[in-house]
């Protein structure tokens, strides 16, 4: 029973958004539906203003509020610690999006956030896109995830219409990893294929993925040695994504930005 978790070193993160792009391509997300995002924000006031950034995947909380509020148990905590959505159960009530303190959940039926053409209309699905949309994919782009990897029970792949989607810690990769591994290191050819796409692609190597239940894992050592902290910890969700803030990194949760 692993308990997969991620460590993001904010001192190393350069805000290049490669993780965002890799995630969108790996999981076939629409533009704006950023399961993994780097949020840019401003701190301080002129003349001491700074631009900061903050990478934000789903936190895959130990005590997830989204799981507690789902009236149909469509979103659930898997044995290996991921918070997943069963797209065959989801009724699309948006309550988990309300209950998530981190804003990591998205509704499938989305307009283009950045303007431009609706990419779902450009690559329409042949079997879906009906009003009720009980069966069939929402859209069908040529670069979609291979069909044998699509797994709606775990929220993997091009989803159906009118359901909530979120980061699944690349369940289709991580779930195939041999049992008992302490770390999924993208540098190691033996484990690279099982590592989440954002970790593999991270150019400065700011992301680490491993088993939080294993005391020998690299992620546990990093959290212990570099004082890893969790985002918005006062809500009690206990995220399984830890941030190493160091000297230069900034976690916006600690800083009440009072613009008034």
């Amino acid at each position, binding site marked *: 029973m692993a308990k997969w978790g991620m460590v993001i070193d904010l001192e190393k993160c350069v*805000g290049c958004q490669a993780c965002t792009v890799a995630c969108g391509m790996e999981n076939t997300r629409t533009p704006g539906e950023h399961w993994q995002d780097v949020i840019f*924000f*401003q701190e301080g006031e002129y003349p001491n203003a700074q631009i900061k950034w903050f990478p934000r995947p789903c936190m895959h909380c130990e005590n997830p509020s989204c799981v507690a509020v789902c009236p149909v148990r469509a979103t659930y905590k898997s044995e290996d610690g991921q918070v997943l959505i069963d797209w065959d159960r989801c*009724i699309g*009530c948006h309550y988990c999006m309300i209950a*998530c303190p981190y804003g990591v959940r998205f509704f499938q039926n989305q307009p283009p956030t950045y303007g431009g053409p609706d990419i779902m209309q450009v690559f329409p699905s042949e079997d879906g896109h009906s009003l009720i949309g009980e069966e069939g994919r929402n859209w069908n782009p040529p670069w979609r995830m291979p069909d044998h990897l699509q797994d709606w029970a775990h929220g993997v792949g091009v989803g159906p219409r*009118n359901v909530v989607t979120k980061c699944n810690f690349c369940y289709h990769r991580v779930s195939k990893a041999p049992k008992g591994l302490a770390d999924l290191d993208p540098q190691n050819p033996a484990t690279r294929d099982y590592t989440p796409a954002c970790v593999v692609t991270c150019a400065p190597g700011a992301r680490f993925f491993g088993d939080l239940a294993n005391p020998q894992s690299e992620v546990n050592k990093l959290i212990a040695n570099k004082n890893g902290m969790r985002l918005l910890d006062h809500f009690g969700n206990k995220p399984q994504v830890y941030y190493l803030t160091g000297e230069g990194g900034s976690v916006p949760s600690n800083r009440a*930005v009072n613009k008034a």
Partner: protein
Amino acid sequence: MIAIKQPRDFAEVFRMLGELYREVGAMEFLRISLNLGRTPSVAGNMWKWGLIGSLITFAWCMYMEVAEGHRALNMLSDGINWGAQIPTYVFFALTSSGLTMIAAMPMVFGFKQFYPIAKRCIWLSIITLGAGFTVLAFELGHPFRMLWAVPTGLQVMSPMFWMGVFYTIDLALLIIKFYLLWQDDWDSGLSHFIGTASFVAVILASGMLGLLFGSMVMRPMWYGSFTSIYFMLTAALSGAAMIVLSAYIAYGFKRERMPETLRRLASTDELPKVFATLIGIALVMIPRACGPACGATSTASKAFTSWSSPRCSTSRYGSGWPSPSSP
């Protein structure tokens, strides 16, 4: 010619409608139905125009739903995820609860002067609850999935699950209660029991609807145990408003057209007193309801300024998050 008499149950209603249909033919039957009678009454005219308005609204909403999807109703991943449909649902559901509370005054608490509006309250309560459920069904991405997914999931941690349970019980009790009133069964043991049970169910249902919002610690604007109380109180207020409005609409805003018992109630200051009391309570409770959530004190002005404070914004980034900007 069929003698007009008060039907006693649904079987009699449908039998009478069937006889009327066979007697006058389809077109004439449709005309009589749309007018609620052979010669249009005030209520019949209101009903006709209301029906036309509803159909136009429904057609427009369905067009937007098909052509634009939920984006037309602000049901987006950004901002507040619950767009126009959820407040509409909450309005109808709470109005229904409030109407049952007003009906409980004569039927549970023994304020006999309110008997003339009790039956109208229960009937409107059923209608508004049905309207609320309909809006909710359009809000859901997969409404029909709910029928099997809720009973098999049985997520007792979710306020939404309990809201469904209590409102379903509420609807069943309302229908039983309306049937009993139809049978002129105002005073039997069963009628009293159903009345009390329905009042309890409606308090639980509206309180649970408040808890659905109030338990969201990551949404500071809503958060707090007081949200439940606030929902119950505003439910009673909008129920009172609805029954006053509809009682007057039914008689074309003319008191002399009302039946004797209702006219006696309308001539006294009983109902305005109830209404004024509820308005007063609701006004006092507004700062209490959003006060604790935003850390404001009891003054209304502070509570209102906290609406615009970024720390209290219900943005998808939760409390304390700065708003994102492009790189």
